[in-house]
C-alpha cells in the first residue's frame, strides 16, 4: 500500500515503529497532490515548504519520544480555518490576499499535536453551497466521477480524502456541509454537537449553526480527529465547558439492543432508488447485529429548509458586513468616497451565491419583515428542536439518508438555487437542533457513486453515534473501496 493511502492510525503505527518517517509520508502526499490535483482541484493553496519543515520537526519529536496520535500526520484544512502565515481565502475573491495573523483554535490544537499542514482546501465561497461550484478558485470534481460535484461546502475536504491527497481533513457544517460531501465522496464525516468544538478563528457564515468537524477515511480516524479538536475554548463564548471523552474508547463492535429510530418523514416516495436500497441494506446490517428499530416521527422536517434559509442568511448578512474593504480584503480601486468604496469592494469581491444570501438575509431582517420571516423561523426552529428531544426519549440514534440523491452532475442545479437548497433537506434539521450527526459510507449507486448513511445522536452523544458507525464499518467493506484516479 502506498503511504498516501494510509489512515491516521495506520500511519501513526508506522511512524511509531520507525518504519517510515513523517518526511517520507509528507513527500508521498505532496507527490499525490501534484499527480491528481489537475483533475480534482481539491486545494486552493498547497504548502509544500511549510509541510516538509513541519514533517522534519515531527520526526525530531518522534525521535525524542514525544509522540501524539497526530504527530507527523499530513493533514489538509478547509480554507475557512485561519492559519497563521498561510493564505486563507474562504474561496472568495474578497479574501484572495488575506494572511491571518493567528491560528484558529482547532488549528492550534492540531499543531500542538505536531500535525503536518499540507494545504488549504477548496469549498463553496464562504461555505455557501452544496456542490463546491461557487468557489472563486474553480469547481472541485468528485474523484469517483470527475463530471459530478463532490458535494459542499466542504467539497475540497471530502474530495481530498477520496483522492488520497490528505490523510485527514477538517471541514465545517452549517446545514450539512461536512456530512453531504462525505456521503458523495465515500468518506466519514462528523458534525459535532454545537458548542463541542471552538469556532474561534473559523470564518463565520451562520454563527448559531456553524460547527467544525472531521472528514476522514474511517471511523477510527474520525474519533481521533474529533478528540484532538473538541473541548472548551474561552475565546468562543458559544463553546461548551464539558469534559472531552476518549472517543476512541467508544469504538465497539457491539450494538446489541441499541434503539435506532427511523423517522417516517425521511423515507418518502421520491427518494432516489439507489439511496433507498442502500438504507434498506444498512437497516438489515444493523438488525443482524442485534439493533432494534423503531419508527419515529420528526413532524416539522418539511419546514427545516425554509427555516434554515431564513436563519442562516440573516446571520450571514450580519457576519459578512465586516467585509468592507477597510481593514482587510479586497478594496475596489474604482471607488469615489467611503460608501461607494464599501459597495464597490463588496460587489467586486463577493460571488453571486454570497450576494444572493446577503440580500435574502438583509431582507428577512429589514424593518417590517423581521417578525414575518426571521422571528417566525426562530419559532419554527424551537418546534424542530422539540421534535428531536421527543424522539430521543424513545431511541438512542436516528438513522436517515444523508442526501436525497447521490452526487449530481456539475452545473445540474446551479441555475436553480431553490433546488440546490433542497438537496440539504436531510442534514439541515440536525444543525437547527444543534445536535450531532455523521455520515458513513454505506453503498454505491448503480452508476458507481458513493451513498452515505446518516446517524444522528443526542446532544453531546458523539460516542454513541461513533459506536454505531464503527460497528457498521466493521461489518461492511464500503469504506475500503477506492476511487480510481
Amino acid at each position, binding site marked *: 500500500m502506498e503511504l498516501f493511502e494510509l489512515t491516521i492510525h495506520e500511519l501513526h503505527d508506522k511512524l511509531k515503529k520507525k518504519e517510515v518517517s513523517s518526511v517520507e509520508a509528507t513527500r508521498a502526499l505532496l507527490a499525490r497532490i501534484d499527480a491528481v490535483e489537475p483533475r480534482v482541484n481539491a486545494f486552493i493553496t498547497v504548502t509544500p515548504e511549510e509541510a516538509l519543515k513541519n514533517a522534519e520537526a515531527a520526526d525530531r519529536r518522534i525521535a525524542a519520544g514525544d509522540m501524539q496520535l497526530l504527530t507527523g500526520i499530513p493533514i489538509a484544512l478547509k480554507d475557512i480555518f485561519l492559519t497563521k502565515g498561510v493564505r486563507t481565502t474562504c474561496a472568495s475573491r474578497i479574501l484572495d*490576499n488575506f*494572511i491571518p*495573523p*493567528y491560528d484558529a483554535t482547532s488549528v492550534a490544537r492540531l499543531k500542538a499535536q505536531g500535525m503536518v499542514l499540507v494545504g488549504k482546501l477548496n469549498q463553496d465561497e464562504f461555505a455557501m453551497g452544496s456542490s463546491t461550484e461557487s468557489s472563486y478558485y474553480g469547481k472541485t470534481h468528485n474523484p469517483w466521477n470527475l463530471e459530478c460535484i463532490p458535494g459542499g461546502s466542504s467539497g475540497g475536504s471530502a474530495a481530498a480524502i477520496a483522492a488520497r491527497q490528505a490523510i485527514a481533513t477538517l471541514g465545517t457544517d452549517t446545514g450539512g456541509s461536512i456530512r453531504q460531501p462525505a456521503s458523495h465522496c465515500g468518506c466519514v464525516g462528523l458534525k459535532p454537537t*454545537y*458548542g463541542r468544538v471552538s469556532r474561534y478563528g473559523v470564518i463565520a457564515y451562520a454563527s*448559531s449553526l456553524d460547527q467544525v468537524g472531521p472528514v476522514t477515511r474511517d471511523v477510527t480516524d474520525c474519533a481521533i480527529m474529533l478528540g484532538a479538536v473538541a473541548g472548551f475554548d*474561552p475565546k468562543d*463564548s*458559544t463553546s*461548551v465547558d464539558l469534559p472531552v471523552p476518549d472517543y476512541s474508547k467508544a469504538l465497539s463492535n457491539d450494538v446489541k439492543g441499541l434503539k435506532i429510530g427511523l423517522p417516517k418523514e425521511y423515507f418518502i416516495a421520491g427518494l432516489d432508488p439507489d439511496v433507498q436500497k442502500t438504507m434498506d441494506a444498512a437497516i438489515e446490517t444493523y438488525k443482524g447485529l442485534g439493533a432494534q428499530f423503531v419508527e419515529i416521527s420528526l413532524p*416539522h422536517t*418539511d*419546514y427545516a*429548509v*425554509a427555516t434554515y*434559509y431564513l436563519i442562516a442568511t440573516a446571520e450571514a*448578512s450580519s457576519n459578512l*458586513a465586516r467585509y468592507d474593504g*477597510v*481593514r*482587510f*480584503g*479586497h*478594496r475596489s480601486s474604482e*471607488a*469615489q*468616497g*467611503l*460608501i461607494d*468604496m*464599501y*459597495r464597490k469592494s463588496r*460587489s467586486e469581491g463577493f460571488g*453571486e451565491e454570497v*450576494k*444572493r444570501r*446577503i*440580500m*435574502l438575509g*438583509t*431582507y428577512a431582517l*429589514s424593518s417590517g419583515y423581521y417578525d414575518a*420571516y426571521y422571528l*417566525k*423561523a*426562530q*419559532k*419554527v*426552529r*424551537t*418546534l424542530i*428542536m422539540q421534535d428531536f428531544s421527543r424522539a430521543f426519549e424513545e431511541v438512542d440514534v436516528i438513522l436517515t439518508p444523508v442526501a436525497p440523491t447521490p452526487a449530481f452532475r456539475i452545473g445540474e442545479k446551479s441555475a436553480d*438555487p*431553490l433546488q440546490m*437548497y433542497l438537496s440539504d433537506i436531510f442534514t439541515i434539521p440536525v444543525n437547527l*437542533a*444543534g*445536535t450531532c450527526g455523521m455520515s458513513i459510507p454505506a453503498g454505491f449507486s448503480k452508476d458507481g457513486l458513493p451513498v452515505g448513511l446518516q446517524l444522528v445522536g443526542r*446532544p453531546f452523544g458523539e460516542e454513541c453515534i461513533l459506536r454505531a458507525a464503527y460497528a457498521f464499518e466493521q461489518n461492511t467493506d464500503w469504506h475500503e473501496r477506492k476511487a480510481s484516479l
Partner: protein
Amino acid sequence: MKITKAEVEHVALLARLELTEQEAETFTGQMDAILAYVDKLNELDTDGIVPTAHAVPMENAFRADEVTPSIGIENALGNAPKRAESFFRVPKVIE
C-alpha cells in the same frame, strides 16, 4: 409577486451591494421564488412558541479584567488595503 425589483434595489442599498441591471433582474426572480417557498412556515401556528436563537443556552461569558497579549498594531494592519502610519486609510468622509 413577493418582492419587486425596486425592493431588491433597496435591499442592495441596505446591504452595501451594487447590483448590475442583470443581477437585479435575476435576484428579483430568485428571491421571489425563495420567499414564496419560505411562506410555508405560515402553515404553522407558532403563537406562544419561544423563539430559539441558539441551540445551546447562552449566558454571558465573563473573564477576569486582566491585560492579555494581543496581536499588536503591525499584525492588525498587516492585511490593510491601505494604511498610513498606525491607521487604516480610507477615502475622505467629511468635505
